[in-house]
């Protein structure tokens, strides 16, 4: 019973996410390319860290999606992390945050 509820819940939330993001698949691959190569220039091609910290699911377990999304959009003052707001919509940043949190290959 409990398990059914959980599955139902996760189905709903992923459906909501898909609706909310509404990103074309061409744009999705652009975003993944950006993540790999441009975010990767500081965080590593496989996001295992460089001059910037590692962005692996393990490291980000405690960080809410909203926090990661805001960091992508607005950067972090006092660190080299720049704001990506000029290049990404909120939905796109949110989509990237989810990809990072679940782990991208």
């Amino acid at each position, binding site marked *: 019973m409990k398990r059914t509820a959980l599955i139902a819940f996760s189905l709903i939330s992923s459906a909501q996410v898909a609706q909310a993001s509404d990103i074309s698949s061409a744009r999705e691959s652009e975003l993944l390319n950006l993540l790999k*190569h441009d975010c990767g*220039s500081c965080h*590593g*091609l496989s996001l295992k*860290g*460089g001059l910037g910290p590692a962005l692996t699911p393990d490291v980000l377990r405690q960080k809410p999606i909203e926090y990661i999304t805001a960091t992508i959009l607005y950067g972090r003052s006092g660190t080299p992390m720049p704001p990506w707001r000029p290049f990404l919509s909120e939905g796109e940043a949110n989509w990237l945050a989810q990809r990072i949190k679940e782990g991208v290959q």
Partner: protein
Amino acid sequence: MSRWLIFPLLMLFSAIPIEAGELRGTGDLGVVVERAKGSLQVIETSGNSVLGRIDGLGDLSHASVVFSRDERYAYVFGRDGGLTKVDVLERRVVARVIQSGNSIGGAISQDGRLIAVSNYEPGGVRIFDAETLDPVADIPADYAEGQRSKVVGLVDAPGNRFIFSLWDAGEIWSVGMSDPENPAITKYPNVGKNPYDALITPDGRYYIAGLYGEDGLALLDLWYPERGVKRILNDYGKGEQKLPVYKMPHLEGWAKAGRHLFIPAVGQHQVLVVDTDNWQEIGRLDVHGQPVFVIARPDGRQVWVNFAFPNNDTIQVIDTRDLKLVETLKPGKGVLHMEFEPRGGEVWISVRDIDRLQVYDTSDFNMLADRPAEKPSGIFLSARAHRTGL
């Protein structure tokens, strides 16, 4: 007549590895890092062609390469801590070690016997035998109780020394390796906040670390190391709004033209020009974006600049006689690196997002070759074997 018969035969041979017994020099060879694939392309600059590929080099997302003094072997420093020695002629891996969790670059000693690698994780420098890759020395970048720094800007220096900077600690360290059993470490603390990379001038005299955390650069005169580190260009960003930096500039790949040094500003879309006689700024040029590499043609007459995202589709060329921009090229999205042929007539450019390797004539800026490569990044020609700091 016979000449025309030989030509296709040569073409045929150039496509396969050099066989045992077949003679070939290495002075016109080089390697190109294919960052996503974890491979190297072996190139030759006489005909501007690709000879072949060496695979299995791990995560090369921020890889760099140095050459043995005989120009036969390339040492590849991978992001995943892999140090690989490859035979450029036979196009195969000779030795490989995973020496840390996360590394950023390396250098070969003046005597050619030692390879040093700078690491982020665990922070420090590890030194290996160039012949066998056996470990020789381990220098953790401990700067306070329980604090270890990421290491950047590692170069070789005359006197069989390695010099590097500590990103987290704001220090420069020099390690003398004349006696490999007993590394002689000298530390220069408080050089400035967050040194991000460094260069050594081609004469091996000045080590200069760029600072991310504050304006200016840290300068160490290796002829007078006892005088310590001094700060130069302290005012270059004063009172100006810092622009976001979407990729850290690189200082390795120096840009010295006569007595002038050309340096990327950080957080300003400018190239700074410094007089190396007195270390005063003599000018600055507005450029297309945040500069990443600022590299002089070997004769010093031109300086070529590429840029960080989102301006990384462009290269600009500065004429060093009057400090004016003379050319703007648009090779394609993701221009990551430029490497001049040793006499400067041609320059190789890697264009990541369109998977191309291009060669330009530096006198008229015409494209001479355009070759496929998978997500190419760093280009390293074997002539680096004979340059301090490269």
